[in-house]
């Protein structure tokens, strides 16, 4: 069927302000939005710029706003959108560099700020550290994060103030705070108890809706808030 693909365009070397281009193309209901973007780039307009790599929802490169909602372009099919007119725009809240490419540095700076790595100062055993399936399950959901930024750039609190650490960073912190092998939960909770930390979350749930990995982000943030409030990790 024929599809009309309206795409946000901005070339910093030529444009004073952004505009939209509309491309017509043939597509199948099972085509990914990424397939359509590739088709346009390959055969209509090579200047159209976007990031992508794995094309099946695990690398996190191609997060963008599609018909007003954050998705990975490789994980949303034409049939999922139920429309023949598709609008594709860059993520909100991060500076647009070119077309659909945004500056990811502020996002990764927030990620790095929450100590997103296991801290355990004990000498490890010769074999593995033991961890029960229940202990492992406790933080399973937040291990799924691929750092695509769909959540953080869907968050009105982040749009309002980019100093807010954002849902993705809290998810990263959660993954370690609730890992039975980790010893730095206290430090992470102190970091997130900051004025730009976890209390900027007003439980709007946009992040949870936006997550292509179906992580229950708002719930994870709630658990971190509770840990700060009670000083307990249960």
């Amino acid at each position, binding site marked *: 069927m024929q599809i009309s693909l309206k795409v946000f365009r901005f070339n910093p070397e030529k444009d004073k302000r952004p505009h939209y281009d509309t491309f017509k193309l043939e597509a199948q209901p099972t085509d990914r939005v990424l397939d359509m973007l590739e088709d346009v780039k390959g055969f209509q307009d090579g200047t159209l710029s976007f990031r992508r790599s794995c094309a099946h929802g695990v690398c996190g490169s191609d997060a963008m706003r599609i018909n007003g909602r954050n998705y990975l372009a490789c994980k949303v099919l034409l049939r999922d959108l139920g429309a023949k007119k598709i609008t594709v725009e860059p993520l909100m809240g991060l500076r647009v560099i070119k077309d659909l490419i945004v500056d990811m540095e502020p996002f990764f700076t927030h990620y790095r700020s929450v100590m997103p790595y296991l801290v355990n100062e004990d000498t490890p055993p010769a074999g593995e550290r033991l961890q029960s399936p229940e202990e492992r399950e406790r933080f399973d959901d937040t291990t799924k*994060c691929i750092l695509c930024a769909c959540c953080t750039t869907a968050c009105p609190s982040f749009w309002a103030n980019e100093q807010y650490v954002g849902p993705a960073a809290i998810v990263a912190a959660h993954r370690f705070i609730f890992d039975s092998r980790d010893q730095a939960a206290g430090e992470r909770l102190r970091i997130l108890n900051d004025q730009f930390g976890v209390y900027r979350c007003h439980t709007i749930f946009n992040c949870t809706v936006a997550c292509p990995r179906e992580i229950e982000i708002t719930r994870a943030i709630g658990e971190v808030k509770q840990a700060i409030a009670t000083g307990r990790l249960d």
Partner: protein
Amino acid sequence: MIKHQYEVIVVGAGGAGLMAALYASRTAQTAVLSKLYPTRSHTGAAQGGVGAALGNVEEDHPEWHTFDTVKGSDYLGDQDAIEFMCTEAVQAVYELEHMGLPFSRTPEGRIAQRPFGGHTNNVTGKPVPRACYAADRTGHMILQTLYQQCIKNHVEFFDEFQVVDLIISNGAAAGVVALQLSSGEFHIFHAKAVIFATGGHGRIWEITSNAYAYTGDGLAITLRRGIPAEDMEFFQFHPTGIYKLGILITEGVRGEGGILFNDTGERFMERYAPHVKDLASRDVISRAMYTEMKEGRGIGGQRYMYLDVRPETVNKYAALDGRKRPDGSQYQVTADEILSKLPDIADFCRVYLGVDPITQPMPVQPTAHYTMGGLPTNKFGEVVIDPQNTVMPGFYAAGEVACVSVHGANRLGTNSLLDLLVFGKHAGLRAAEFVKGASFQPLPADAPDFALQQFDRLLHNPGGERAAALSREMKSLMFDLVGIFRTAEGMEQALVKIRQLRQRFQNVTVDDNGKVFNTDLLNAWELGNLLDLAEVVTVCALNRTESRGGHARDDFPKRDDVNWLKHTLAWKTDSEIKLDYKPVILTKFMPKERVY
């Protein structure tokens, strides 16, 4: 031209690159250059597990893992390197756990393990659970954990820097030329040691599990610089890619008891691999599927088969096979167990196929998956450049770009993650040791020129050919003619066409003449890499007149140890591809017939 100087430069930030960086940066001033943000690397797409004989679930030994890998390689793997890898495996996995990797766990709290194709108990011949896993996202967890450790250890990164050339001075690696994607500026990185961890080239083929970024850049660069490539005819087609899309469905599905069926509802692998059936080696299963389809038993006569992991199917065939749990009870699964062990697979099926694997079988077809060949290295990750294994000073390679060779003619599932851990680490250690006693080689005055010329030509070419169109033609002809089954006739035809495409590539025009994130230009350059490699693959495959592992020829259906128990080395010159050979290192296992 912006210049930088580091003792060690790591190119690529997948599993191998990050391991190398973690180890090199302990003692040497190190920087990592990556065309993608590190967490976007293709290691993250690996699903089923990393092989190591921990014996957490059943008796297992590194010696068994070694033999299985040798056999899996169809005896083309170098046995000293394989033994080294399989012995190091146990420590490598524990080390990942200590770094924080969230492995799935056994009831006792140990790292969970599942069976995978070709991994066996060497006494009974039955599949053994050797794949250490984190649900069906083991590669994701490895990539995240290693990147997290890099952050903890303050490893320096240059993200979205595309390396476009290797600088060689006095016969040694002296640095790289890189294009900064955000600015379009070229940079020179002067180094004492360079480690290539640039991945494979699976984008040559139409149906592929490989990421867009997997364009063989590292290997194309080194071939242009006169460094040979090893065993390029060996490329793995994974049996279970999602029909038409090629997205990987892990072998772990069959490890958990999933079964392959043809159109008549027959479990056809029983005929091809009577002992381990659906857990035979990947090359064996991909060929069986192709044969079934050719004989009209694809589903509805189409080019796909069913992979069935519905609990009732799993339980029926587990009972027929006499599969037991470790405690001796009958192996039985529930829908919840399947979902908890294979959550991402269930998600892929729902998103891309509209199929729920708990209630419906999955349509699958073989998909281009893994580069067994690559930059020849020894087991320390040092690049070796001739049949005598002469080391090129300061140059290292690890992961999929490298050919140690531990995978020989066919890689076993779970051994790619293992390969990148073990050889990434040792390449990093070796490079760090090398730079202690080495000085910087002088930079040649014309260091950036060769790369600049390539990009300049692409930018100002009026020829009018579109890279995307050429790419489509290459992929389809390589899949049809230099794919799972090959013949001289087909490959000769392919070679003519690939050479025509390379000619037409000289006339490729890009639309984008800007500097900032010129992905149009980058994609065109990547296509040039793929075309170069497609030619080398085809020449090597045409030359090897036998069938071995992933290289299966209809016109030479048997393995020929008398003439072909040797590695191919290929050099690229301006006018031709020159071939030579080097012996396979045999230590404990003499080649015998390979049956599963």
